[in-house]
């Protein structure tokens, strides 16, 4: 049976929320960015976009393009609040909602005709409800799968409603540039262009074998997409693939000592989030963005999954030595933990965890009490979590991070 999938995307979301809260900004170029001097643009109103301002662009560039723009800092908790309101509306129409991000979601409305009419009508009703109840504008794409629905919503922006009727998928896709396909970035686009492939229609006419020869498994995937084939279901509970945290600093970090402190703080936050989600991970990834925006990542995989901040911190320290951080000034540090396994993967009764022979390798021949007994470490971490529940995130912090001083401000 043909499915009815909606992709719903809030227009210029952060900027729209700001305008909602301060109506006097309506009609002005509003730019939301981490910090005017060093941050990155997280949203731009359509008025600002006319000047060429785009998301993910350095705020300094945006300032140059649009000096009269109203620059506002991020207020994530407010955006989350607005997003929750909108998602609650979505869920009145169908329980099958897959959030992609704070402002994007897939909905599966297959078989809802008796309730809301056609998929197109359902999309229209959702748009109206969101506008009426929250004042926000959402663009919708309606199609028989996720991939097409997402392309469709993008084409109609702002305030769009684009429907790809069943049976017309090919006609819809063919004239579009290949860059619209998921997984086609600048590099692939360039390679395709050298093969004379510019539109999705061009790509569709290339024999599958040739795509596989040129691009491997990725080529096969692109070939399927060019035919509008995408069988992935709308997943209501997307499992997180990784949990991480990163920080962009207002001033470049140059000194390893400061970086170590920042890593400790990041590790602490990541471990807390791991524990809150009840998961542990085996791969620790360090992300370093140098002052010139060059981004490197370094990762290591542990023998056992962990949710312990100290373990994550030691990995991050090791990884830091594999970067040029220090000699090259650093503007962003991030830590993430992936290869997640649920803490409940093993039954609580009879769960087993390896005890270490030494403390920190090579430094301390006596086993550190916590390293010696993972049970103790677990109890310690749980106690820390409880203290933070009661007294807030700074109710207890690692000894090396006693004050509130942020090296980047």
């Amino acid at each position: 049976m043909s499915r009815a999938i909606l992709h719903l995307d809030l227009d210029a979301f952060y900027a729209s929320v700001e305008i909602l809260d301060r109506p006097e900004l309506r009609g002005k170029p509003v730019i939301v960015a981490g910090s005017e001097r060093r941050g990155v643009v997280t949203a731009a109103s359509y008025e600002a976009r006319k000047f060429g301002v785009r998301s993910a662009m350095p705020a300094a560039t945006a300032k140059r393009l649009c000096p009269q723009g109203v620059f506002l800092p991020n207020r994530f908790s407010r955006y989350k609040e607005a997003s929750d309101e909108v998602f609650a509306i979505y869920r009145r129409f169908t329980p099958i909602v897959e959030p992609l991000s704070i402002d994007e979601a897939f909905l599966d409305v297959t078989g809802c005709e008796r309730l809301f009419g056609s998929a197109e009508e359902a999309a229209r009703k959702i748009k109206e409800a969101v506008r009426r109840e929250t004042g926000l504008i959402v663009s919708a794409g309606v199609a028989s799968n996720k991939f097409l629905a997402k392309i469709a919503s993008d084409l109609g922006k702002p305030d769009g409603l684009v429907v790809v009727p069943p049976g017309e998928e090919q006609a819809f896709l063919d004239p579009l540039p290949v860059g619209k396909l998921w997984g086609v970035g600048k590099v692939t686009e360039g390679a395709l262009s050298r093969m004379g492939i510019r539109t999705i229609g061009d790509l569709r006419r290339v024999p599958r074998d040739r795509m596989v020869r040129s691009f491997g498994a990725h080529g096969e995937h692109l070939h399927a997409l060019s035919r509008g084939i995408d069988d992935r279901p709308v997943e209501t509970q997307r499992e997180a693939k990784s949990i991480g945290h990163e920080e962009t600093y207002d001033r470049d970090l140059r000194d390893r000592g400061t970086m170590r402190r920042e890593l400790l703080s990041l590790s602490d936050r990541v471990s807390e989030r791991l524990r809150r989600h009840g998961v542990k991970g085996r791969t620790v990834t360090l992300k370093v963005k140098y002052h010139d925006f060059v981004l490197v990542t370094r990762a290591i995989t542990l023998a056992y999954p962990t949710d312990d901040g100290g373990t994550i911190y030691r990995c991050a320290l090791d990884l830091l030595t594999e970067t040029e951080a220090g000699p090259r000034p650093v503007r962003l540090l991030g830590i993430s933990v992936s290869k997640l396994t649920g803490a409940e993967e093993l039954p609580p009764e009879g769960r087993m965890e390896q005890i270490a022979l030494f403390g920190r390798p090579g430094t301390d021949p006596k086993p550190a009490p916590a390293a010696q007994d993972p049970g103790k470490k677990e109890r310690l971490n749980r106690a820390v979590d409880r203290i933070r529940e009661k007294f807030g995130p700074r109710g207890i912090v690692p000894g090396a991070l006693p004050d509130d001083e942020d090296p980047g401000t």
Partner: protein
Amino acid sequence: MNFSVDRDQLVDVLTGIQGVAERRHTMPVLSHALMTVSGETLTVVSSDLEIVIRCLQPVTAGEPGSIALPARKLLDIAKVLPKETPVKLTVKEGNYVEISSGRSHFRLAGLPAQEFPEMPEKPAGKPVSIDGDLFRRLAEAVVSFASSDETRYNLAGVLMERTEPKEGAFLRMVATDGHRLAMAEGEAGDIGDLFASRKVLVPKKGVQEIRKLAESGPGSIELSASDKFLFAAKGDTEVWVRLLDADFPDYRQVIPRENPLKATVNRDAFAEVLRRVGVMAPDKVHSVKLSFSGQQLEISSTSPDQGEAQDLLEAEYDGPAMKIGFNGRYLQDAVSGISEEKVVLQMKDEVSQVILRPEKDTAYLAIVMPMRIF
């Protein structure tokens, strides 16, 4: 350059260096073997910058010279050539080599010899001679205990040192991955101060290469060391291994002096039960439970959503009933280092180091940390 060589000898020499020829293409020349002819000798070298192997092979030489050839492809070719037929290699212009044997002809692209990394120097000083079988035995007993975890560089090798608790000099090898440790030693005759004046921490792969050299036939291997390399030679083959520049932890501190609870089990029965129960142990952690009670040891495993396994074996044990969790693989590795009929487990409690050793011989012991049972 050109020379003729016996096909089987060519296969042998290329097989010997294969383990070191780099498959990944970080530096293309490292996937190549450097072939040099001078006089009546062919020298074949392969290197991954950490380990260098050099083999000499008598040939019927035509013209001296050298070239780097893709090690894997050259071996593939040598293997399919007719047996017991001489193979002739001739270097042609543009770093090509022609390989012919009987009516078969191959043309293989190589790289200029100059691209191959320079050879490390042989350590100065008189090499010492160590029984090849001793080296192999010690290495085999401990090498699987070294860490494969890339974050633990200082545990990624085998520590070699000289001990002299008894008369004669003993060679001791120790390896640990931070969860378990193995130590094996044996009388090594006159090893001078080879392992006394410096710390010799040999990476896992290097130990394997020297072990292969040691077991390539009877007789002893010659060892010498500089601050950077351990050098081993036997017959026509030489191996350089770059030492790990890291601090091995003070392993003596984690060897318990007194572990009062002693259980003695039959080695083969223990190994078999571990293997059997291990089938149902969870994939990544291989956790198994050992329950000691009276003269019985029950070993069991549980895989969530899959099922369970248990088995029993006899044990000489007179301590209190006790249940300890382990990574079953660690126990299997420890047992495989023991050749005596009986294995002794010495324990203190459920969370402290457990010693596994042969009943009589004191030259081997393994320490395994338990897994905490929640």
